[in-house]
């Protein structure tokens, strides 16, 4: 048995089989969550390359699976990343039990994560661009709800993800030339431009970010959060693969400056636009743009890789809680504009409080999950680029203003009716757990984030 069979083929097959449970979406979601949970546990416990004993059955878990003359390799070093990915997916799938993310959420969720894991494993690793594109295509039925018109956000999402792929594939071919002649500055420049464009398309970097707020506004918020969470993480891991493999790229001075610049631009733009936003869905979109900016900023800062990995947990929690709360609010409000949600805090105290908590966490509000990683980054940035630190602080301030305006909308209005809890019981429970987790991670950051900060050891050339 090989590791790719366990973490690529098995979830893929499980996803396909779960399509047959489409009449029972809650059962399918529970089964999918169990599969993802077991795979996360397996990634944590099983050692690749060593003999594994399960009762009377013992076998060696091989690293490599051969397909059409190419290899899919999942070594022992990548297990921490697999654990994090499958845990995130398991938590997300758990949320689909209580949400209207559609009957296809559970099977498609597993298929997407299988394709994305394949993208991490394929050799030559540049073929990952094709697998990431396929994963993006599988996300489409998740994002387009039946019976509703197709929004422009979905069309732009599919367009930008597809346009990014050719740039990365062609870069792969040019890289061979750079490796042979690293002194050829014209070729290096060409590769850098193609690489930058490819990743800008995939990561929704300015000016290719427009689909993010559109998708958050027009699609099912919980389904969109899956895309917002998983796509940037996998694309970033793919990008880190580039830096890990190519010394000339790793050592090029402009790479980290460009990453930092792009990060600052996105964080500041996300914050600024969130500050003036009046739609709760789009507000989440701008929060996501700011979060992508934060990730790029962390990657572009010297010694910032542990910060990036540590930020995954608070980001996953915040996005999960934010989108769950949005779904609950959608059930009780005609739309998600500030005007329509005025005074909603009296009717939906749990959803509104958790939404504001999640928003403030992404803004880096003290004692919430997002604060420790932001503080960590600001400390690093202040020593390396004070202007970047100031701009990123302004981005966070913009998000904070957006959060406070949301809070004001929830508590304003002339509705003086009695306080009541209108959220569904299970939905409210999930929101409370998520909201509590945001506070616990913020108050005890070392307990949770220190483990994630060890993941960069996977990248031997990049780890500080």
């Amino acid at each position, binding site marked *: 048995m090989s590791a790719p069979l366990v973490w690529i083929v098995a979830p893929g097959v499980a996803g396909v089989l779960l399509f047959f449970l489409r009449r029972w979406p809650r059962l399918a979601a529970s089964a999918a969550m169990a599969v993802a949970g077991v795979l996360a546990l397996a990634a944590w416990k099983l050692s690749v390359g060593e003999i594994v004993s399960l009762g009377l059955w013992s076998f060696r878990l091989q690293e490599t699976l051969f397909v059409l003359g190419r290899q899919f390799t999942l070594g022992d070093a990548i297990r921490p990343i697999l654990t994090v990915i499958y845990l995130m997916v398991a938590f997300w799938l758990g949320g689909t039990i209580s949400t209207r993310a559609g009957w296809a959420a559970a099977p498609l969720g597993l298929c997407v994560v299988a394709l994305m894991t394949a993208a991490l494993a394929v050799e030559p690793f540049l*073929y990952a661009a094709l697998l990431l594109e396929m994963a993006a*295509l599988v996300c489409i*039925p998740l994002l387009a709800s*039946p*019976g509703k018109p197709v929004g422009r956000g979905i069309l732009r999402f599919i367009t930008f993800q597809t346009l990014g792929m*050719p740039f990365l594939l062609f870069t792969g071919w040019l890289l061979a030339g750079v490796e042979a002649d690293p002194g050829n500055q014209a070729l290096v420049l060409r590769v850098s431009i193609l690489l930058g464009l490819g990743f800008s398309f995939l990561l929704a970097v300015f000016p290719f970010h427009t689909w993010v707020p559109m998708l958050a506004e027009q699609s099912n918020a919980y389904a969109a959060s899956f895309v917002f969470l998983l796509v940037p993480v996998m694309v970033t891991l793919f990008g880190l693969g580039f830096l890990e493999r190519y010394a000339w790229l790793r050592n090029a001075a402009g790479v980290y400056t460009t990453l930092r610049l792009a990060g600052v631009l996105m964080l500041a733009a996300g914050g600024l636009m969130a500050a003036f936003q009046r739609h709760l869905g789009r507000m989440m979109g701008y929060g996501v743009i700011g979060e992508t900016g934060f990730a790029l900023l962390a990657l572009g800062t010297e010694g910032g890789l542990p910060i990036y990995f540590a930020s995954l947990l608070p980001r996953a929690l915040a996005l999960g809680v934010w989108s769950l709360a949005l779904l609950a609010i959608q059930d009780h409000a005609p739309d998600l504009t500030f005007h329509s949600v005025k005074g909603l805090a009296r009717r939906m105290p749990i959803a509104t409080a958790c939404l504001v908590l999640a928003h403030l966490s992404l803004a880096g509000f003290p004692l919430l999950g997002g604060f420790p990683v932001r503080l960590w980054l600001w400390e690093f940035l202040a020593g390396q680029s004070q202007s970047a630190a100031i701009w990123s602080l302004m981005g966070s301030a913009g998000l904070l203003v957006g959060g406070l305006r949301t809070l004001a909308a929830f508590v304003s209005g002339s509705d003086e009716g009695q306080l009541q809890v209108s959220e569904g019981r299970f939905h409210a429970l999930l929101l409370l757990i998520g909201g509590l987790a945001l506070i616990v991670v913020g108050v005890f950051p070392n307990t949770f984030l220190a483990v994630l900060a060890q993941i960069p050891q996977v990248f031997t050339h990049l780890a500080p």
Partner: protein
Amino acid sequence: MTLGDLSLLSLAWPAVGLLTLTSVVMLVGRNWRWCIAALAVQYVGVFALVALSWPVEMAVAKMIAGWMAGAVLGVATITAPESWREEERSWPSGRVFRLLAAILGGLVVFSLAPRTAALVPSVRLEQMTGALVLMGMGLLHLGLTAQPLRVVMGLLTVIAGFEILYAAVETSTLVAGLLAGVNLGLALAGAYLLISPTMEAAK
């Protein structure tokens, strides 16, 4: 160079002409049947240019994948014809504008192709011209529409152009399979987007 290669080579410029014609038909066409037929014919031109670099049997696979993509889109549009009717309203002037934009794009492509081909020695001028025509027209198509069928046709056109270029530098079977998968995936995603507004919402 074999006799087969020579005959394929003689087909290269006609294939570029075919690609130009089909991509313009897709851009200005108002009838979805014509547009999808043009998409299918486009893959014949793609086959002719890819076959200059790949074995014919692998190039044929690319053509068949393209035809299947066209068939999927066709079936979906038959199922939900309203999706096509929600077209841009300013048609007569819009059509002229698209045609003029296509001519402008074509001029840019034909003037840039020789210089670009010189940058990539393994790509023939015919392949570079055909690829740039498709990528240019595809991007133009994407920039002028927000209709799911047109967006998917635009994306398939851009990808087809890229495939011609990439075939000259990469001959892996896995890549050929994955690219065919991407083409079919795009068509299936497009089909879903076409029919999802008419599907019954989940309770």
